[in-house]
């Protein structure tokens, strides 16, 4: 989308920290093989909980180059963000030292901030919940950085040397899409030339598992953790919690071309709408998500038929899968039946605010490789979900434009269109 400002925004660097392997390369190999990274929760004893499975990242801070001080002061999600941003910056080949720091910004999406650090520190200062007047003598010095998770964006900015507009975007489970959409807007309007944008969440802590247990949003397929995340399948009964991060280097198209950068994709269109219906519930008609898709395509100047692949929210709750299927039909018309649609949450789980960015990475890599990742574990489709969800195995597929969508608590519905910058406008 050139938008009203005439500037176009492209992805020139990708970093991914996802369950099943750190780094964009490992991530893509997991997806294109159709392997799953869900397992029984190992970071604490999950036996008291209803849902006991998750997609965890095996994250070796030392191996990934984080200093002891960085590890001490940062929540796990912030650590993800910093490591992933460094990968994206290296991948972009852009010399950050040569940039105007005030024209370089950072936007990091996160739904639940430092929830893991807060859960741990709460136990300490409250003596495991015994003290209502919690004891400040036991508080760690960086507790404030857990309280207000804008610290994530500051850490990333310090790591890459950015001093321009910097913020955390926190719109629940669409944060990862909205953070990148926000950053693209800053470049487009001319407030920044380069943005390091993405998302991170590390929600696999007792409080998060318990709060999703309470609303039966997560799966109870504890007996078969590897096949617990089953979007669009008739046997699915909730999502599988995940964690991770994806971060991008975004640049203005002309300057990226001038420096001969590798361009993965253009952020061609983006929109977000609210259902103004319910904090956790979705109306089955998919109306607001369809509207977000319509506006995003409009911004991209692409007709629905131009969408080659839909990266679905596909969380694996009954209400989501049906809501989303309805939204695709409503916005794409007959083309909804022709276009491949898949959910990588079947493989890497649902990392709340991070997943939107991880799915953008998957979408960009699908374009890069002309391969559509599959929906794993999809053996017996829900009869009400009657689209082509690319079951089980990846598909070779020419992919010039991708639609990626997200849906979340608070009623937020977001859609982003990635496209090759040299495509023909509709």
């Amino acid at each position: 989308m050139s938008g009203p400002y005439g500037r176009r925004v492209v992805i020139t660097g990708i970093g991914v920290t996802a369950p099943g392997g750190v780094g964009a390369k490992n991530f893509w190999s997991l997806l294109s093989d159709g392997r799953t990274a869900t397992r029984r929760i190992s970071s604490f004893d999950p036996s008291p909980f209803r849902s006991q499975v998750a997609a965890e990242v095996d994250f070796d801070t030392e191996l990934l180059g984080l200093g002891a001080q960085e590890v001490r002061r940062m929540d796990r999600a912030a650590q993800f963000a910093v490591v992933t941003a460094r990968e994206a910056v290296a991948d972009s080949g852009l010399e950050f030292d040569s940039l105007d720091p005030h024209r370089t910004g950072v936007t990091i999406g996160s739904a639940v901030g430092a929830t893991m650090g807060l859960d741990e520190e709460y136990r300490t200062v409250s003596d495991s919940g015994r003290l209502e007047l919690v004891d400040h003598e036991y508080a760690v010095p960086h507790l404030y950085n857990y309280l207000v998770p804008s610290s994530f964006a500051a850490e990333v900015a310090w790591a890459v040397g950015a001093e321009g507009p910097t913020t955390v975007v926190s719109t629940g489970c669409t944060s990862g899409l909205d953070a990148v959409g926000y950053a693209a807007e800053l470049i487009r309007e001319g407030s920044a030339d380069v943005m390091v944008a993405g998302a991170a969440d590390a929600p696999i802590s007792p409080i998060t598992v318990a709060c999703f247990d309470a609303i039966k949003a997560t799966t109870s397929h504890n007996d078969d953790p590897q096949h617990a995340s089953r979007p669009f399948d008739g046997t699915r009964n909730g999502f599988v919690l995940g964690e991770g991060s994806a971060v991008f280097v975004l640049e203005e198209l002309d300057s990226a071309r001038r420096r001969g950068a590798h361009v993965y994709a253009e952020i061609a269109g983006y929109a977000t709408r609210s259902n103004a219906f319910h904090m956790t519930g979705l109306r089955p008609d998919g109306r607001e998500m369809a509207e977000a898709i319509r506006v995003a395509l409009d911004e991209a100047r692409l007709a629905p038929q131009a969408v080659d692949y839909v990266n679905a929210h596909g969380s694996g709750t009954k209400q989501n899968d049906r809501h989303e299927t309805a939204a695709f039909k409503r916005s794409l018309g007959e083309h909804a039946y022709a276009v491949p649609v898949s959910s990588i949450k079947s493989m890497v789980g649902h990392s709340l605010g991070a997943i939107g960015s991880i799915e953008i990475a998957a979408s960009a890599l699908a374009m890069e490789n002309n391969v559509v990742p599959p929906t794993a574990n999809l053996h017996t489709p829900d009869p009400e979900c009657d689209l082509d969800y690319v079951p089980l195995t990846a598909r070779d597929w020419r992919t010039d434009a991708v639609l990626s969508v997200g849906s979340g608590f608070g009623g937020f519905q977001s859609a982003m269109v990635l496209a090759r910058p040299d495509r023909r406008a509709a």
Partner: protein
Amino acid sequence: MPSHEFTLDDLRRILRDGAGADEAADLDGDIADTDFESLGYESLAMLETGGRIEREFDITLDDDALTDSRTPRELIEAVNALLVPAEIG
């Protein structure tokens, strides 16, 4: 917590504490056969209510018990069905 029976008054109290009361609904009236939905309680309110009943009466409602119980009478029956055998046993 041992308890003989789950009553409409128990349900009223738990609804009020856990989900609040809709100004348009008269919880103290004859509500046994009124849809929860007409009383202003949607699925989330029912999940909170179910969780509170489970804790107070030390039972586990299966996933369908809540969604299948459309009225207070049906929910009370579902809860009591779980309570009585425990008392005999």
